């Protein structure tokens, strides 16, 4: 399969942005993800002569920032599950909150929870 120089450039730019946005992950994990997405794009455009197949494929993946955000959210939730650290949990909830309304609600509720917990710990609320 031969991609036009322009298509090649579009793909390279997409993957470069994706890699940059994944820098919070372990380097080997980020490389692995970029490699997989690259293979996906090549497979989708294989044998397709139609102009614009690369554009359609990239659109289906979302922008590199959106795609990276989904990987990062999963990564943070995963870390929260493993560590159960309240700080990491809160941080990942904050990320989730930026992505969905339900997440935002969960974030606000948990913030209130943290505040109440803090209050209780410091006995400031007890009379």
């Amino acid at each position: 399969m031969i991609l036009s120089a322009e298509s090649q450039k579009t793909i390279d730019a997409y993957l470069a942005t994706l890699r940059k946005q994944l820098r919070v992950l372990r380097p080997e994990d980020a490389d692995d993800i970029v490699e997989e997405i690259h293979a996906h794009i090549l497979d989708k455009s294989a044998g397709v002569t139609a102009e614009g197949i690369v554009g359609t494929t990239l659109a289906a993946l979302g922008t590199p920032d959106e795609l990276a955000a989904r990987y990062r959210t999963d990564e943070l939730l995963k870390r929260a599950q493993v560590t159960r650290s309240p700080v990491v949990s809160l941080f990942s909830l904050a990320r989730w909150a930026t992505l969905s309304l339900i997440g935002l609600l969960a974030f606000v509720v948990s913030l209130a929870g943290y505040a109440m917990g803090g209050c209780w710990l410091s006995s400031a609320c007890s009379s």
Partner: protein
Amino acid sequence: MKEAPIPSADNSEKWEVQLRKGSLELAILAALWDGRLYGLEILRELESKSDLIVVEGTVYPLLNRLRALALVESEWVESDSGHPRKYYRLTPAGRQRALEMTRIWAKFSARMNNLLTHLNEETQTVPEEGKEPV
């Protein structure tokens, strides 16, 4: 943040999206039941066999998460296409999880269908708005 009230048509569409989204994890595990597949094969399998709206930008991060949870494992395999492909297969934990989810799904949908019996009869007598009765 100011939001306009959501019209009910949009709302029901949203519900459908959430429903499909929630089913995706089980659908992926089910697609891998018979053996290893790479990402695009999983996508095609789901598209042809399920009613799911399969968004590529959602499936790949989800595969990554399933791998992090050790429900699937992956390996790079050389291919004739000129580039290697990342194949996924179920781990023993993944097979167990798939069965567990299937049990939950079956029980849930059976009870839900039970609850919906009367409504189901209604939908067969009352045609959908704008559509001719079948």
